[in-house]
């Protein structure tokens, strides 16, 4: 069970195969995601994404391991884990793209980012806080905002 989920979606006026290529092909990835990409859309493949910060300072290199490749429906990877580690549910964020055709030339694209599994939480106590586990990432942001309110009085 994951502790949070970000979920975002968009409808695209293009067939599902075209959207799939845009998401997975390395030369396309450079156009919407990172400044450099050393990745291969194959389950288990590890690579990196490089982000330059507006041309200033050292670029940031993020590790990525492909998890699931089910063309043209599902593509997932784990990222943001330490460079000397192997990606696992406790040290990384899981990003899943789901593509659903909603017409011959229209695709619904959903992205989910989930993590980190609460491995240090004893089993018998998980139920008590199950509701909190299910809370979305945006919900958490909303809640932090509410938490702020009383301290401003």
């Amino acid at each position, binding site marked *: 069970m994951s*502790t*949070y989920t*970000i979920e*975002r*979606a*968009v*409808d*695209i*006026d*293009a*067939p599902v195969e*075209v*959207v799939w*290529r*845009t*998401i997975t092909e390395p030369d*396309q990835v450079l*156009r*919407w*995601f990172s400044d450099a990409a050393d990745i291969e859309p194959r389950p288990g493949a590890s690579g990196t994404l490089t*982000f330059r*910060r507006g041309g200033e300072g050292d670029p*940031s290199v*993020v590790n990525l391991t492909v998890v699931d490749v089910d063309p043209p429906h599902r593509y997932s990877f784990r*990222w*943001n884990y330490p460079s000397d580690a192997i990606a696992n549910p406790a040290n990384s*964020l899981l990003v899943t793209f789901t593509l659903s055709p909603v017409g011959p*030339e229209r*695709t619904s*694209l959903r*992205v989910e*980012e989930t*993590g*980190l599994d*609460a491995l*240090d*939480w*004893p089993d018998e*106590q998980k139920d*008590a*806080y199950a509701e*909190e*586990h299910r809370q979305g*990432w*945006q919900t*958490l*942001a909303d*809640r*932090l*905002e509410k*938490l*702020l309110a*009383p*301290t*401003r009085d």
Partner: protein
Amino acid sequence: MSTPASDDALWEAVADPTRRKLLDLLVVRGQATATTLTVDMPVSRQAISKHLVLLQRVGLIEAHKEGREVLYRVREQGLAEATDALSEVARRWDRRLQAIKRLAEEAHYEETHAHRS
């Protein structure tokens, strides 16, 4: 400024439900010791202390001494920064999806245009 990796510590700090619960309790009470916080939590005092150290390290809470006790309280500025950072993560995915949409629609337009010509 913000790259996906730079928010890691904050990300990890608030992703954990125990730490979110601790933040909640501290907001409600204003301030509290690790021992009194343990009363309301289903985990050990030792575990609570570890969580408090982590929350302190990312700037979400602060500690001060009163006599022999260490009291913890929420750092308002830290919470405000956290809220901004978390919203930014969601916005970043929105921007990426919009870019994917634009690229895919352009590619589709070009393909169908080529077929028809």
